[in-house]
């Protein structure tokens, strides 16, 4: 049996969901028996080298680059999983939704209590930088998402169960404790 190809990424997230993937502990050895990672911070492959079976998305979309990466995942993966609160509903980054961007940037770079040394009051605007979106978007409000695994981070057991179920084509049988929103 050929291995399922998995790609992962973290958009507007904190990498906590990726940490949770690693939290499956020694089961990761079982996992690599059945899956092969492609584009992912786990193996540091930067670009898709082939079509993937499963794409795992951490984080929502807060800027233009997130949108490009997410669309790239949709094009290259058969199944997309939104992993964690940020991917599902924007999460903590989305707490800025409703606050004008100008205010957000000024708080972050000019007037905020932790800002030091920006005497010229510069808000970064290099043309190479990704541009912020008007709000942080849940992934499924940009492209189609097939499955959702909530949690902040999602419990390792949930990720494990979901991947195994998906690869084996079986139904998940989840204990109550593993599906949480925090």
């Amino acid at each position, binding site marked *: 049996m050929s291995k399922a190809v998995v790609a992962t990424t973290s958009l507007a997230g904190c990498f906590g969901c990726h940490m949770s993937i690693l939290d499956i502990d020694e089961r990761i050895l079982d996992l690599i028996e059945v899956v092969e990672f492609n584009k992912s911070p786990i193996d540091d492959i930067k670009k898709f080298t082939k079509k993937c079976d499963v794409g795992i998305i951490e984080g929502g979309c807060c800027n*233009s680059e997130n*949108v*490009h990466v997410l669309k790239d995942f949709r094009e290259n993966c058969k199944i997309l999983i939104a992993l964690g609160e940020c991917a599902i509903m924007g999460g903590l980054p989305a707490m800025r939704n409703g606050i*004008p*961007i*100008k205010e957000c*940037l000024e708080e972050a770079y000019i007037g905020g209590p932790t800002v030091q040394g920006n005497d010229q009051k510069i*808000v*970064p*605007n290099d*043309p*190479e930088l990704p*541009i*912020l*979106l*008007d*709000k942080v*978007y849940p992934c*499924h*409000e*940009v*492209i*189609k998402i097939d499955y959702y695994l909530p949690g902040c981070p999602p419990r390792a057991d949930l990720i494990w169960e979901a991947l195994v179920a998906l690869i084996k084509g079986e139904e998940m049988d989840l204990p109550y404790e593993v599906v949480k929103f925090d």
Partner: protein
Amino acid sequence: MGTIVETILKKYGNDSTRLMDILIDVQNEKSCISDITVKEIANGLNISMADVEQTLSFYHFFSKTPTGKYTVYLNDSVVAFMMGREKIAKAFEEAVECKFGEVSPDGLIGLFNTSCIGMNDQEPAAIINNRVFTKLTPFRVKELVKDMKAGKNINEMFSASTGDGNNSHELVHSVVNNNIRKEGPVLKDDIAQGEIIEKISKMDPEDVINEIKDSNIRGRGGAGFPTGLKWEFCRRAAGDQKYIFCNADEGEPGTFKDRVMLTERAELLFEGMALAGYAVGATQGILYLRYEYKYLQEYLEDVIKRAEEAGLLGRNIAGNKKFEFNIRIQFGAGAYVCGEESALIESAEGKRGEPRDRPPFPVEKGYLEYPTVVNNVETLCSAVKIMKYGSEWYRGLGTLESRGTKVLSISGDCFHPGVYEIEWGFTINDILDMVGGFDVQAVQVGGPSGTLIAPNEFDRILGYEDLATGGSLIIFNQNRKLLKDVVLNFTDFFIEESCGSCSTCRIMPVVMRDKLVKIMDGIGVAKDIDDLFEWGEILKASRCGLGQTACNPIVSSINNFRDLYTSQIKTAKDYETGFDLNLAVQEACEATNRVPNI
């Protein structure tokens, strides 16, 4: 000498259940109800400021900030738009030099939108300082604004001629027209004043109820509950006081027949209320009148006064010591949901117009917890006719399921909009023929909470067995864009008028509206139509009729005009979010002076 507020509070006996009247008087005296006033009212009634605020903020016609020396409320219902509302709004904004929702900088004129004001047969129409101005034109708007700027009294702003019938009565003095196109047995002015009161005062109240029951008349407000049964329940309910409410809160866009009956048949209505009171054993009647009809107040109060003088209201009516009945008018303040009987009662108690949970029903526990009957204007008027001509006569009218006649309010694209009384059982085609409907694309039966009917269903009949209606029929010709002009407008109406108390009705219509707009924007997929249809079901878990039917504009138009939706679906994709990166980066580009690099 106390303050204005103290005087008003005193007038209503510092009774917190009269909060609506108090707020109305204060609003009219001071043109707003500020925080200081709220505090004064709260102290005077011994309730918290939050309590005053919660009633005050519920009603459209109350405001915490000044609304101008002249306050213009321009109707924004479907038919108003069809008859040229946009031009009128623009004329107002240009002449007054402020936008709708604002007050001119000098505080002279405030411009506001409002839900249907019951003038669909003479739109565009507006209420200015409690007076109604109909058939507005941009020219007339200029004239009106000029008068306002000259500081004229509102009553001097009328053009030379007033409306037909009692609209020209000195106590009404209004430009409104009745447009009664067809009188039937209920509208017909064929009863001598007091004749029926005299007759029933010699009857056993149970016999009166039986006569009404035998007639099989059902409530004319829309819900269609058997009237006789309602009266019987109330009569049987325990309570040392009972109340008769006349529901004159007709807020369903497109309905205006109660306004006409109030103008022309007030005596009949008040006799109907007294009759109901006698039958159920109630001595107090309350006419719950929508604020939009405030211009009828003086006239109606005068009719009540004259009835009292004639011994038809008060004590010992018709010489019967057991027959006592009094009527007072309770105004609403702009809330469609108050047409729901339990919300109406809440409102009359000075509270937010939120429908109550049932059971208990108002006939068991209604106004101030006493057994209460709430009947529509038309129902009560019909009851008087039934007592005159007998239940058998009444049963001979209409169909087997729907006895009697229905007074219809017909508006939209037809030659003769107005009020028609016909027997139940006629088809939509018959009606279109009667009113001169032309080039008809669709007919909205029963207002926004009713059904949007396509020509292939014009052979359906009006009646409880098929198309039940509280009386509103709106006709749309082929030029109307049904989704934008009708469905969206109606959906906005429900969003605006939801009381917000139950979750489903508060949230679902907003979510459905977004999806409707998505489809109209051409970025919908086939599943979006199915979603709308399915989501409408969720609203059925709402407490009252408003919530349960809030999806009807969308769902009934999908049912009968599915093509309007499918033709908007441009893509074969099964999923489309409509996300637009260009749009999403716009704000940040402006904030950082960048050009999109996407």
